[in-house]
């Protein structure tokens, strides 16, 4: 087995597009990642980070790769129906992992800002990527990130020079369009903000049809000194789809990151967020909201490393479970020796609304310094009977009252979405999901 990829992943390892040999450094990274995949093998539930997740269904589905030449023809009707009303953005659209210039609308970019597709950059300015690609994630990569590194399609590249400030948000729309057979898309994104740069990124994963496919995405985010990034991620994949995200974040001194992860779609949606502070006085706020309905598994793994002193992190994830919905929250905050005056607060709250829902949560603290303020809190509970009664005594039906309380529970996270237009779309989507959910 040592010279072969694990069963089911062979197609994932084939890098799309340009033939090998174009860039020696890139080939080396890809070969290394492929080797890693072979070494890692397929994890089972004995692996701690796969304790509550089985890959059986994923492996049983054979995924083929996307034929990139067809990508532009897949969305003949355009994407107007999927735009956020009132959102003025630098828009880049990817279809099944591949850049679609026709659907994108980058608009005019201020000086010091470069936004484009990964493969265009590899042709036009490979040196800009050479030091950056795989820099945040590092050479040791977990299985799905290594698969992406070895066989990524295309992706978004955002490079902001020192002091560059982008007023309008960057919007990345990833569309999944059905094909004859289940296929896997492996988008690979790189966002690097140099010292003092500021930007906002909105990432949206959308499917045109309720089909079976897999999206295996990796994001590398590098925030320089004093840089600020607002990052809203809205995952609305098809209810049959597999969605995998590896989000790698590195924050230099005084940088500020605020990420909101909304998970609504996918049969199995796994998000790994690996955040690391490399400079002091940086702040990181990770928030999440997940709705897990029938047969859905929302699977979150957070690993926040306070490697240096004086940084602040906040991890706040909330989930609503109904039907046979399942959620996993595996959060870890590591405070390294000498990372004094760390302030970290992790919270995971779950509302369980049905007989067959399940939550497995594991909020961990690993602390090797004494002058720290660290806490975590977890709750699993139901809709509060007092609150429900209050609403009903004002004339609201039990089901409307329940929905309202669920929205109230979710509200804290929805309100922290950076862009109001996006906030409204999400509130609407969450409301619609709850509307169709059997909450009684």
């Amino acid at each position, binding site marked *: 087995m040592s010279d072969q990829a694990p069963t089911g992943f062979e197609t994932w390892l084939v890098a799309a597009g340009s033939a090998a040999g174009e860039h020696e450094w890139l080939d080396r990274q890809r070969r290394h990642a492929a080797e890693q995949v072979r070494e890692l093998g397929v994890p089972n539930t004995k692996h701690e980070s796969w304790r509550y997740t089985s890959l059986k269904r994923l492996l049983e589905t054979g995924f083929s790769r996307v034929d990139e030449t067809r990508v532009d023809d897949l969305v003949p009707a355009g994407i107007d129906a999927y735009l956020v009303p009132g959102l003025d953005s630098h828009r880049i659209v990817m279809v099944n992992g591949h850049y679609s210039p026709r659907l994108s609308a980058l608009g005019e970019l201020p000086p010091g800002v470069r936004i484009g597709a990964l493969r265009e950059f590899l042709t036009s300015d490979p040196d800009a990527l050479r030091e950056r690609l795989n820099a945040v994630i590092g050479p040791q990569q977990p299985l799905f990130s290594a698969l992406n590194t070895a066989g990524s399609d295309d992706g978004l590249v955002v490079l902001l020079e020192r002091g560059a400030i982008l007023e309008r948000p960057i919007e990345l729309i990833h569309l999944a369009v059905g094909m004859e057979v289940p296929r896997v898309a492996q988008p690979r994104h790189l966002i690097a903000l140099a010292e003092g740069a500021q930007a906002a990124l909105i990432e949206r994963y959308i499917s045109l049809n309720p089909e079976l496919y897999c999206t295996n995405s990796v994001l590398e985010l590098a925030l320089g000194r004093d840089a600020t990034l607002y990052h809203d991620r809205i995952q609305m994949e098809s209810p049959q789809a597999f969605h995998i995200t590896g989000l790698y974040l590195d924050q230099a001194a005084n940088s500020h990151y605020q990420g909101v992860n909304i998970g609504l779609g996918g049969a199995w949606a796994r998000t790994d967020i690996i955040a690391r502070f490399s400079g002091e006085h940086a702040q990181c706020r990770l928030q999440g909201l997940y709705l897990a309905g029938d047969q859905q598994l929302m699977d979150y793994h957070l690993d926040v490393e306070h490697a240096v002193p004086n940084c602040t992190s906040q991890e706040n994830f909330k989930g609503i479970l109904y039907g046979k919905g399942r959620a996993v929250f595996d959060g870890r905050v590591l405070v390294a020796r000498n990372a004094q005056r760390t302030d970290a607060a992790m919270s995971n709250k779950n509302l369980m609304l049905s007989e067959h829902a399940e939550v497995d949560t594991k909020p961990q603290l690993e602390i090797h310094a004494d002058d720290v303020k660290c806490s975590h809190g977890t709750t699993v509970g139901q809709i509060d009977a007092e609150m429900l009664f209050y609403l*009903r005594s*004002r*004339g609201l039906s*039990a089901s409307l009252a329940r929905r*309202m309380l669920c929205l*109230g529970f979710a509200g*804290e996270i929805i309100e922290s979405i950076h862009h109001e237009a996006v906030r409204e779309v999400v509130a609407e989507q969450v409301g619609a999901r709850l509307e169709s959910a059997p909450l009684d």
Partner: protein
Amino acid sequence: MLSVNGLKAKVGETEILKGLDLEVKPGEIHAIMGPNGSGKSTFSHVLSGRDGYEVTGGSVLFEGQDLLDMEPEERAQAGVFLAFQYPVELPGVNNTYFLKAALNSIRKARGESELDAVTFMRLIKEKLKILHLDDSLLKRAVNSGFSGGEKKRNEIFQMALLEPKLAILDETDSGLDIDALRVVADGVNALRSPERSMIVVTHYQRLLDYIEPDHVHVLAKGRIIRSGGKELALELEEKGYGWVLEQEQAA
């Protein structure tokens, strides 16, 4: 409008209401007074349909309908309103959204059309003024982070908006300073009408200085042991509950 006959209710194994009778006609204000533990709150909770109380006997008819057979929202839709003693906080639930949903549920039940946004906002602002409440309330979550006085005012504000036929004010005066009490009472008085009845449940006579009742009842040990006009409240204030209780025992 409301007719309570021999109402018995228990909490767990303890019988709290032991045969309570009360007749409320349209436009009347009834004050129910009594010492702590007499069953005042149980009575208002049973009327509003709260869980945890078992009705073991008697009946409650509201405009001829069996109130006890109705869900809490059906009672609200029929025109029964409870101003809570301790309004629960609903973090994250937007007040405007909540008020609109409540008002439209009730209008729908009455066979009226839903209000459009403009009319609704105009109505809301008008009602806010009655209770000297600020617009900012509309952006906040329901009762969330409200002071004690704000919560009580918010209850009366909701009552003004929902325009019930029967309002039950459960210890609305508790925890209010004199200024807040006056604002709340003014709000309540502004809502008095020949069609609207109220049951004012209170421990102290104080509130009745501002909301003048037509009838005063003394509730003790789960039954109404004495009824009279507003002068009964003053007498109680003067002589204390011990006085009626003694008289009851003597009788």
